[in-house]
């Protein structure tokens, strides 16, 4: 990978390649006599590239992670990793900042699921609701989005980095429906919160390691496909941004404000992707943003990247996905007048 990326273009100056391969085994035994085991392999390959053209430097990368072993790395996957790491870097030389302010935002299928992770996923973790500190604390059963919006947190997506057979309290991981046809349907539970609410555990009780207590955590969070077409969605936007790749996000559970940082994207002008954009933070409010999702495409993709979620000082591997989605308005942290 290192050699191929260094040879990808004469402008490439530095390459970093990181390979992580892990075989995890978990056994949960409790005083009811239950003994549950799971094998949780994890493989991650990440490449980053720094290129220099005429004194200007840009850096970007690509990574792939899965509940798998080294068999994951087929020639096709390695080709994709090299190609995308380079393409994502090269396009930055053409990219600028979008304007600042509120505008329509189109989220590309795949890693844009970071929107769900921040805008609703954390707020639906039952511990925050049990404590009354989540903005979603009194919204269960209420319509919060358009009827074509359904959002799940799925422990069973085959091979996904966030997938688990059982959670760290020994409960089977299923598919938890957070939002069904626009209506808030279920929190994400660990054993404590499930007992508090008198519901069955959802298999979301996860811990970083034996040193930490289990907490309600996400697994693979994604939106189900909707009725629109990707091209139709892009065409519908007069002036806005199209977001393709992301580096990080954050949320305030109670105020509901959340952000995600866009590494690559495009300006949309008169229904077409025109100029590449880079390094811009988007900020919104969870419930308001869900209300403003007014188009959902049929092209759901679960991202293959190595996402990690942090909460209370604990990190756990997660996945996320989204079909192409339009949010009618969000604040884009760019520069200059919109």
């Amino acid at each position, binding site marked *: 990978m290192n050699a191929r990326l260094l040879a990808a273009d004469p402008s490439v100056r530095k390459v970093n390649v990181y390979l992580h391969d892990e075989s995890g085994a978990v056994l949960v035994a409790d005083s009811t006599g239950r003994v549950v085991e799971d094998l949780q392999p994890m493989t991650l390959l990440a490449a980053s590239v720094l290129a220099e053209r005429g004194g200007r430097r840009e850096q970007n990368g690509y990574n792939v992670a899965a509940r798998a072993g080294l068999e994951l790395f087929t020639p096709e996957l390695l080709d994709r990793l090299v190609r995308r790491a380079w393409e994502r870097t090269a396009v930055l030389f053409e990219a600028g900042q979008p304007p600042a302010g509120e505008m329509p935002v189109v989220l590309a299928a795949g890693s844009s699921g970071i929107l769900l992770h921040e805008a609703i996923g954390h707020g639906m973790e039952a511990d925050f609701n049990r404590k009354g500190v989540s*903005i979603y604390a009194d919204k269960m059963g209420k319509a919060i989005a358009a009827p074509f919006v359904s959002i799940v947190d799925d422990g069973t997506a085959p091979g996904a980095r966030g997938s688990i057979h059982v959670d760290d309290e020994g409960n089977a991981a299923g598919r938890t429906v957070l939002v069904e046809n626009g209506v808030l349907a279920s929190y994400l539970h660990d054993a404590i919160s499930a007992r508090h609410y008198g519901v069955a555990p959802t298999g979301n009780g996860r811990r970083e390691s034996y040193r930490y207590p289990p907490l309600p955590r996400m697994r693979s969070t994604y939106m189900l496909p909707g009725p629109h077409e990707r091209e139709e969605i892009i065409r519908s936007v007069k002036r806005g941004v199209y977001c393709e790749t992301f580096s990080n996000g954050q949320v305030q559970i109670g*105020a509901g404000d959340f952000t995600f940082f866009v590494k690559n994207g495009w300006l949309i002008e008169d229904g077409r992707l025109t100029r590449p954009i880079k390094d811009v933070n988007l900020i919104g409010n969870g419930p308001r943003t869900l209300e403003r999702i007014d188009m959902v495409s049929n092209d759901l993709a679960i991202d293959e990247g190595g996402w990690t979620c942090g909460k209370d000082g604990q990190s756990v591997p997660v996945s996320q996905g989204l079909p192409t989605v339009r949010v009618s308005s969000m604040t884009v942290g760019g520069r*200059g007048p919109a």
Partner: protein
Amino acid sequence: MNGSLLEVAREAVRLALRHGAREAAAAVSRARHVELAYRDGKLERVTEATTRGLGLDLYVEGRYSSLSTSDLRPEALDRFVADGVAMTRTLAPDPHRRLPDPELYRGQAALDLELADPDYGSVDAGARRRAAEDLEAAARAVPGADRIVSVSASVSDTSAGRALVASNGFEGVRSGTDYSLSAEVSARDPDGRRPEDWDAASARFHSDLPAPSAIGRGAAVRALSRIGSRKGESALSTVAVDNRAAGRLVGALFAPLAASALQQKRSFLEGRAGAEVGSEWLEVRDDPFVVRGLGSRLWDGEGLAARRFPVFERGVLRNFYVDCYYGRKLGMAPTTARISNLAWRRGTRGQEALLAAMGDGILVTGFLGGNSNGTTGDFSLGVQGFRVRGGRVAEPVGEMNVSGNHLELWRRLVAVGDDPYPYSATATPTLVFEGVQLAGL
């Protein structure tokens, strides 16, 4: 305790040399951490953990590895080191990996930095519990407290020791304590949101902590002040950054000063030594000798004798953070790998006076997400805070963003406060910048 840490470090180095390493350095640490968390009057979580560990740097036939273990039993240590040396032989050679020049170990300051509270251990479970109760009671006693949804209070202390031994002539032992108090408050906004905010303090000595009631009150006042927060207009604006929040900006300015970033060409400050990168107000020293300072030290992680040095003088970049390895690769003299404490040129006014002089703009009290590109200097960060109108703090604002480039931002630093934040080693004062891009409506 520290005597045994030193013995283990010496033994690890002896074993490394015996198993065939040409040079080795061993760092052995031990830390006890206790934390008590209360929520709404009930005990939420108790943590007590003692951790030990060995970090071992091996230099074998021109090859280098860095290993760690928590199993310090003599029989385990011998096997660990033997395996480590054998594995190191399989790596690619790296001529730049060597122990530091022993000259750099010399000249340690003869100072008592007072990093360990001699009364550590006198704070017992009852005292921690009373502090947690005081944190919450004070939060619930502020005006408007009927809008408080939840109060979380945390009280913690740590006692840590560390020994470092290098086979070319360094031995050091040190210990330190720290204590912290924090409170987080969630409030109910009539519009359905539940804004949260926090306050916290930490200190090396227990007697230096503020009263828990001050922290509890601070958290409640901050959370309640978020009620009614609105998004403001997109504009170029004067922006004051609260001393507590400013660490986020300073971290992004200092990360590209690392020699590793320079060598990897991921630094927008590369090649700018001696050049003006900020206004005259950007004047910062690295000061490892602050008595009871959170980042104070007599020697750094490689054993280098700590020294004060200027980082920025009247906006001019004077020094990078250079460790021995990347320094050798770049041909730069080592300074130290990481920030100790920062000492800022002090302004003459407090935040209130700075805001009065500023007139109209935004006071940023917290950042939310966002990122800073160390290669290009571009940044885009979520913010919350208050509008400043006619020199006074006005309504709360949120769901906004600031963006720009660090190479422009620090030239627009027009004032700093006389209020270094006391609970962080970066000791940031309130910072005032002109002409910052805000995104909102």
